[in-house]
């Protein structure tokens, strides 16, 4: 029989146990011994218990099986020290343990063995072997073993050199000198071999599962961080001034259907069909898809929903202790405030100076952009909630004060009634008209007729509305003159494009300085403008030059902006930061919409009205959540989207009426999207779509579908972070334990 020395190395995947056994074997081979070494190879990954084996003999080695009765045991990780580690261990055998504990601290434990300890981890770390997080101790422990096995430093050095691991030799040498050993003080018997010769498991019936129980090693206990499913702010939602849960309603169309999408939209606003037509869509500016292959057509989606399902609840129970709130101004801000209050069961009275509710939706925005049946339908749904409307009376200060007294709270949402005039010679000539008044005539007073060349002064949405309405009202030619460049025009981009498409001419960098005519305007004198250094807004300041020319025309529409008219405020009222004060006394009167903010869009007005409703209720002691605009800076940036997961696809455009038809009528120009496929372009930034990417990429296979989305088996999750790294939409994050 051979007198074979059998060595078993116990380590964890990643510690280098197999290499440790190899170094030991190679060192013996240098001494002229027959050596054989091999490891357990399996599916083990980092952290799993791994064994390696070495046999040494003076004669050629024949055995090819694993080592069951070791004479020497090398244990790379003290946490592995269990009964199965000592399995079959010879009495008086050498046990070398990597531990920070001193040898003596083990007391009588292992007294039957030659017991050696070494803090190999500290030595290896000091020598920078491995990474900061994973120290590799194999070569260090091999150094200690050499000392115990009587292998000289010279042979060890030659072995390291031969295996190409000389960079680890200094640590091995330190271990060679540092290892503590205690000779056996007890006589023991060889430990039993617990591995049976035969598989005890019975073979099951024809198709029974043959599987092992999960490994006993709960690798999750090793992790320092773990993945979590989170919801991060999507840029579309962050950018929406109305506070719409944009990403939710888009995803609801894709997954839950239009009713659910409508419910989500209705939670924040009552005017989706309106916004889906006239909103400048800041959401689309923020959309992470913008620079990739074009923003998602969110406005089109909103319209798709608004035109098909009801947003407002069918009915709401009036609360017994309902607050009585007056809303003055029936435009989008007032409607939004009334809607919010009514939804919560409060009693709302809505005052409107015109004969019908709607404000700018009815007086300003032309019907070819916003058909009146759309306005009627959405306002009707608000009134269905029990909102009382009182129209046809423009309030004065006395009346306003009385209303404020009669109600628990009052919200002022009268918009911008003051029209900015143009202080230039000839401004009083006939044929020069405020654009807003012209639109009022077109929209509310049975129409207006124009002829010849009409010049519109201004560059905002009102200017575009005037220009396009003028064309439809009979003008043979329309020119828009604006003092800055086209890129600086505040109007919605699509409006400008559609206007140009209809034949309207833009004349940019022109400032009107005088009007010519004898009783009636025949021309407007325009000065050329140069762009100077940037002003406070960051835009280049227009500098009016002395070079002028006269543009012959038959009519001029002024669209130079509007401002708040506070003539109906009772004496002493002052609007500060959205609330009205009488001196230092804060009244339960709040401002909303353009009157308060001057942001100038329907969507801003809706958000503002909703916020004012919340502020009013909070001031009355109600426990309500006051709407705050989210911080855009917190939105998921495009750099956190894994673009590789998304195929490029063009936006589904809105369908437009052909130009020939549209300029001769007030029919709606934009016909909306053809289908709802557009929702599938949404990245769903920061919002899990249950796409299974995390599940597919998890190298441990421990993410499963379950719960609201997925469940991670944290008892096995080692915190590698691959799922988080691969999540296409930043709906996961790692958190430190």
């Amino acid at each position, binding site marked *: *029989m051979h007198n074979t020395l059998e060595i078993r190395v116990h380590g964890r995947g990643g510690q280098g146990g197999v290499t440790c056994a190899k170094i030991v074997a190679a060192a013996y081979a240098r001494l002229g011994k027959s050596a054989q070494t*091999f490891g357990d*190879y399996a599916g083990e990954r980092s952290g799993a218990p791994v064994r390696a084996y070495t046999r040494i003999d003076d004669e050629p080695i*024949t055995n090819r099986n*694993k080592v069951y009765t070791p004479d020497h045991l090398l244990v790379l990780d003290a946490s592995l020290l269990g009964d199965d580690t000592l399995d079959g261990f010879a009495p008086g055998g050498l046990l070398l343990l990597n531990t920070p504990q001193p040898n003596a601290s083990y007391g009588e434990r292992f007294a039957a063995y030659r017991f050696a300890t070494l803090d190999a981890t500290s030595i290896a770390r000091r020598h920078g072997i491995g990474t900061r997080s994973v120290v590799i101790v194999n070569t260090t422990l091999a150094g200690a073993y050499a000392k115990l096995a009587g292998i000289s430093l010279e042979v060890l050095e030659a072995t390291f050199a031969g295996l190409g691991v000389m960079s680890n030799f200094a640590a091995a040498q330190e271990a060679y000198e540092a290892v503590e050993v205690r000779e056996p003080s007890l006589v023991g018997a060889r430990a039993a071999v617990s591995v049976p010769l*035969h598989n*005890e498991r019975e073979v099951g019936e024809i198709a029974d599962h043959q599987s092992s129980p999960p490994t006993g090693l709960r690798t999750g206990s090793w992790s320092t961080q773990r993945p979590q499913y989170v919801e991060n702010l999507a840029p579309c939602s962050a950018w929406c001034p109305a506070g719409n849960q944009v990403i939710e309603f888009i995803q609801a169309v894709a997954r839950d259907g239009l009713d659910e999408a409508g419910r989500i939209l209705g939670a924040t606003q009552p005017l989706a069909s309106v916004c889906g037509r006239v909103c400048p869509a800041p959401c689309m500016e923020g959309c992470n898809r913008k620079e990739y292959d074009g923003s998602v057509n969110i406005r089109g989606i909103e319209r798709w929903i608004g035109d098909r399902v009801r947003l407002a609840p069918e009915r709401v129970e009036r609360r017994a202790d309902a607050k009585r709130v007056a809303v003055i101004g029936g435009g989008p801000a007032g409607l939004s405030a009334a809607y919010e209050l009514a939804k919560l069961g409060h009693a709302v009275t809505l005052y409107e100076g015109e004969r019908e509710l709607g404000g700018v939706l009815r007086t300003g925005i032309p019907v070819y952009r916003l058909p009146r049946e759309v306005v009627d339908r959405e306002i009707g749904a608000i009134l269905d909630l029990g909102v009382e409307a009182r129209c046809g009376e423009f309030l004065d200060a006395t009346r306003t004060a009385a209303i404020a007294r009669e109600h628990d709270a009052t919200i002022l949402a009268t918009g911008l009634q003051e029209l900015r005039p143009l202080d230039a010679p000839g401004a009083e000539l006939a044929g020069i008209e405020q654009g807003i008044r012209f639109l009022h005539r077109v929209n509310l007073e049975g129409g207006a007729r124009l002829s010849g060349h009409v010049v519109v002064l201004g560059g905002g949405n009102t200017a575009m509305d005037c220009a396009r309405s003028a064309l439809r009202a009979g003008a043979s030619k329309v020119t828009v003159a604006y003092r800055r460049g086209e890129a600086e025009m505040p109007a919605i981009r699509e409006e400008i494009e559609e206007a140009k498409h209809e034949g309207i001419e833009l004349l940019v960098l022109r400032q009107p300085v005088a009007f010519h005519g004898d009783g009636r305007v025949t021309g407007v004198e325009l000065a050329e403008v140069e762009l100077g250094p940037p002003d406070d807004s960051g835009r280049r300041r227009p500098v009016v030059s002395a070079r002028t020319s006269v543009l012959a025309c038959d009519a001029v529409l002024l669209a130079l902006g509007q401002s708040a008219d506070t003539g109906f405020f009772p004496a002493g009222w002052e609007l500060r930061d959205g609330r009205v004060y009488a001196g230092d006394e804060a009244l339960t009167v709040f401002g909303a919409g353009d009157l308060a903010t001057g942001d100038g869009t329907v969507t801003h007005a809706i958000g503002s009205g909703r916020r004012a409703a919340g502020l009013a209720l909070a001031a009355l002691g109600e426990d309500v959540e006051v709407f705050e605009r989210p911080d855009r800076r917190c939105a998921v940036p495009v750099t956190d989207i894994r673009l590789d997961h998304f195929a490029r696809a063009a936006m589904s455009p809105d369908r437009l009426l052909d130009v020939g038809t549209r300029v001769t009528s007030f029919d709606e120009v934009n016909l909306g999207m053809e289908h709802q496929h557009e929702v599938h372009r949404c990245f769903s930034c920061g919002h899990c779509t249950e796409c299974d990417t995390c599940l597919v990429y998890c190298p441990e296979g421990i993410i499963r579908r379950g719960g609201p989305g997925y469940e991670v088996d944290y008892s096995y999750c080692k915190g590698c972070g691959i799922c988080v790294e691969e999540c296409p939409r930043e709906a996961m994050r790692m958190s430190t334990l």
Partner: protein
Amino acid sequence: MTTQFVSANHAAALAVTLAGRANRGARGFGGGIYPITPQTECIEFLCTQEFDKGSLVRVESEHSAMAVCMGYSLSGARSFTASSSNGLAYMTENVYAASFYRLPIVMMAVNRTLGPPWNIWVDHGDTLMLRDTGWIQLYCEDNQEVFDSILMAYRVAEDRRVLLPAMVCQDAFVLSHTMMQTEVAEQEQVDRFLPELDLPHRVTHEPVTVGGLDFPHETEAHRAQHHAALGRVFDVYAEAQDEFEAIFGRRPADPVVPYRMEDAEHVVVSMGTTASTVRTAVDEAREQGFKVGALRLRMFRPWPEELLARWLVGRERIAVLDRDISLGHGGVLWSELRGLAPRDTLVQNYMLGLGGGDIRPGHITEILEDLRTREASGAPALMEVGQ
């Protein structure tokens, strides 16, 4: 000649490097390679070697790997690839093609269990699946034999009397990944042992179609040629053994390797590394006074019928160990061998170590006891050895 402490995968790669370089004066060396556990470290190592003429082509599959080898070989280059398990299964169509084209390609096959479910450990079922492909098959016991067998395989395969591909098989992990001392030859020695390849049907600048249509009588002729060539392998192998011994100073093992067979009444027949462990158990049985011997089958194709029959004459009981299972039948080795046993000899089949189960001397001792005590042979026995 130097002694190196290397794994059998690396031993194979070192031998291939020397063999490949030895053909530098002719058409050089090349092959297609595709990794699969447990063969990967062999081809990784080979990829770090430099060849004066030719190179290895990294391809997308085993099927293509063999196709590249065929291209190299047809052009007169010495060619090599390595694979395992399901890789061999995927390669199979071209494994046949290589031998039907009579190309002396050498392939190292690391024996690994076929899946699914996936199992990376040793089992001989993968190369035994290829037993009818017309290749020479050698099974190795240790690192040195892997090294030597690669050289022997080229020598025999390229012999004008043979011109057939050869497969050098070794057990997954217990051999492929086990490091032991290995004698590595010098280039000059290998140059002497392996003459430059001169393939008679090498394609040159003349366009030819290889492997067109065979009519029945042509196929009959091709099969007869092929079969006869395999039959000549034994003589060619024996000559190569002599030549090898003369040059390298050690003698490669015979196609059938006896151990303590002098007066053996009971015989254990096995292949691969199992035979090592068998020897330990035979020694123990001998110490207890049992007349036990062992045979290791080193060459499975061509089937060394005469040698085996000679060794089995007069034995009372034979245990055939299979690390494989021909499902619905029994062990492959047993099924081929049992017909050779003399009348009145008890032949019992034991299938063990399937899927890489660790075969220990204790298992062999149990088998010897069963062999000794049973009254008659029975159905093939499947012995579960656990982990």
